[in-house]
């Protein structure tokens, strides 16, 4: 059975122009997302995950960021081609985003209730005020906040509660695609599990597709169908969850990530964080961007950019495997 494709990203390249130079945040990223599926974007801080998410909604800072190349095809339409003012019809209604930092993502001068109501109102102009209120209360309940607190302001909420309000706003219009940027980092473990379960339920109920941005492989295992591992703005490994968790072929970076996790494998005795730091996006190394930290690095890695090697849909961008094919 051929699954319906909701989103295709082709060769997305994003650069930030700053006073210190040009940061190459996203480099030639391509992936596909099927309807009803969840794609995990995993990677260290600064890998370009948020930038990729913001590109889809065209919410990158206007003056500094530039999408220099690529296509973002959503339901057959290239989002990069449609006029800027028409994006507001898509935002929140068809694609919505749960932002990484709940502390600053809510407007401090409006009540949380009115902020959720706004999300509903913007895309349901035919609803009456009481209907909108009712739906907003429903959303609050859905994320586990009693509707009596609708008249509170964000500063009266804890970080975790704010995060849930942000989630309620993003889900209010039953979007087809939700970009969840580390939706659970601000939450404690119990609430985290609750929120993930809730999002999973929605996914099943409405067939929502999701891009789950995270650096937590636990979250990936629980929620994702496919996974893209991002390093220095590139997808260096891509595959199904089974490919990522069970296959023994991996990009050395992914292997490194797994070794740096506590309690992932019984046979790893000690935590082994990957040596070194991610390269500065203003001065990316030639060749494979991971070669400066790679334990298997050889000469070719320092000069030639590796291509995707395809093992039945499990893609690895590494010279180690190029001889095998």
């Amino acid at each position, binding site marked *: 059975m051929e699954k319906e494709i909701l989103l295709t990203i082709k060769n997305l390249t994003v650069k930030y122009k700053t006073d210190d130079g040009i940061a190459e945040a996203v480099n030639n990223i391509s992936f596909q997302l099927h309807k009803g599926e969840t794609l995990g974007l995993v990677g260290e801080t600064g890998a370009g995950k948020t930038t990729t998410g913001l590109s889809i*909604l065209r*919410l990158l*800072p206007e*003056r500094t960021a530039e999408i220099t190349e690529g296509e973002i095809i959503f339901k057959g339409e290239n989002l990069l081609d449609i006029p800027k*003012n028409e994006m*507001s*019809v*898509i*935002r*929140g*209604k068809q694609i*919505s*985003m749960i*932002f990484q*930092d709940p502390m*600053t*993502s*809510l*407007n*401090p*001068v*409006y*009540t949380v209730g009115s902020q959720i109501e*706004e*999300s509903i109102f*913007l*895309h349901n102009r035919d609803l009456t005020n009481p209907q909108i209120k009712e739906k907003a209360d429903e959303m609050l309940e859905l994320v586990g906040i009693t509707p009596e*607190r609708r008249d*509170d*302001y964000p*500063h*009266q909420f804890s970080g975790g509660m704010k995060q849930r309000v*942000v989630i309620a*706003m*993003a889900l209010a219009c039953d979007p087809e695609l939700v970009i969840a940027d580390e939706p659970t980092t601000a939450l404690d473990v119990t609430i985290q599990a609750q929120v993930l379960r809730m999002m999973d339920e929605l996914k099943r109920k409405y067939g929502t597709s999701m891009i789950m941005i995270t650096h937590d492989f636990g979250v990936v295992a629980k929620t994702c169908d496919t996974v893209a591992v991002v390093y220095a703005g590139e997808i260096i490994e891509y595959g199904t969850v089974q490919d990522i968790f069970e296959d023994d072929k991996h990009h050395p970076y992914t292997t490194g990530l797994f070794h740096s996790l506590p309690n992932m494998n019984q046979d790893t005795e000690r935590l082994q964080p990957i040596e070194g730091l991610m390269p500065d996006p203003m001065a990316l190394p030639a060749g494979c961007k991971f070669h400066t930290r790679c334990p298997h690095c050889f000469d070719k890695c320092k000069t030639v950019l590796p291509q995707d090697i395809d093992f039945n849909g499990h893609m690895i961008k590494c010279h180690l495997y190029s001889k095998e094919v």
Partner: protein
Amino acid sequence: MTRYIIKRLLSIIPIVLGISIIIFTLLSISPGNPATLMIGREATDEQVAVLEAQLGLDQPLLTQYVNYMTDLLRGDFGTSWQTRGPVIDEIAVRFPVTLKLSVFSTLIVIFFGVTVGIISAVKQYTKLDYVVTTSSLVIASMPDFWIGLMLMLLFALKLRWVPPYGASDWTGYILPVIVLSLGIMAMVIRVTRGTMLEVIRQDYIRTARAKGADEKRVIFKHALKNALIPIITVIGNDFGSILAGAIVVETVFSLPGMGTLIVNAVKIKNIPTAMTATLFLAILYSLVVLILDIIYAYIDPRIKAEFSRRKAR
């Protein structure tokens, strides 16, 4: 909230006391004898002595001050040494002029200052923005009285569009209001632009866009309400500058307002008029600042939470 307002109202008392002491001291130690100044050069020593006794000038300074203040507390605002009529009557005639001048100027400052500031911020780095930022910088750095004299030269003396002085009808207010508002408007434009630019960069503005709010809604509903807090602070401070500026502008355009009343009273050491008129403006200013603080509370829920003693749920 009520408690807070009462507390703030009470805090006006020490302010008034302080100001009254400063003005009284300055007026009393400045050279010149009020009695001589009033009668004129040809005054005889006898006449002067009689007048001094009448005005209570023969008493020690402290007694004079205490007498004035006790009268004030009883609701007697003093008698002008010049007109010999109650100071309150002079203020009743003069204050409407100053009020019109400052209210019109404030409205112009708020309306144009905030609108132009927003437009300039939204169109950052365009030609329009450069024109606005440059001209507001230039205007803000020119002194009021100089702008006043130049405009008077051009529009009143050369083009004869408006009267050069006096307030016989509304046209007499045009130039004074412009002069009074220009500099402060330039400042409000700069502050509005700056805060709007700051607010537009915030995460919650991105959230608003992500929900599907269009640009107009993002600016006027989400950004402006947040930017208003610093803008109101500036406008509140500027109301003080407008009152102070009114004194200069009234002098330049010979308008019969509080400014000219105070200046003339000081010139001839008419202490009751100078004192009462100044205290009147000081209290007015304190009240305006208080009202602005209450407005803040209504805009910013975080401040309101501090005011109200409602228990956190």
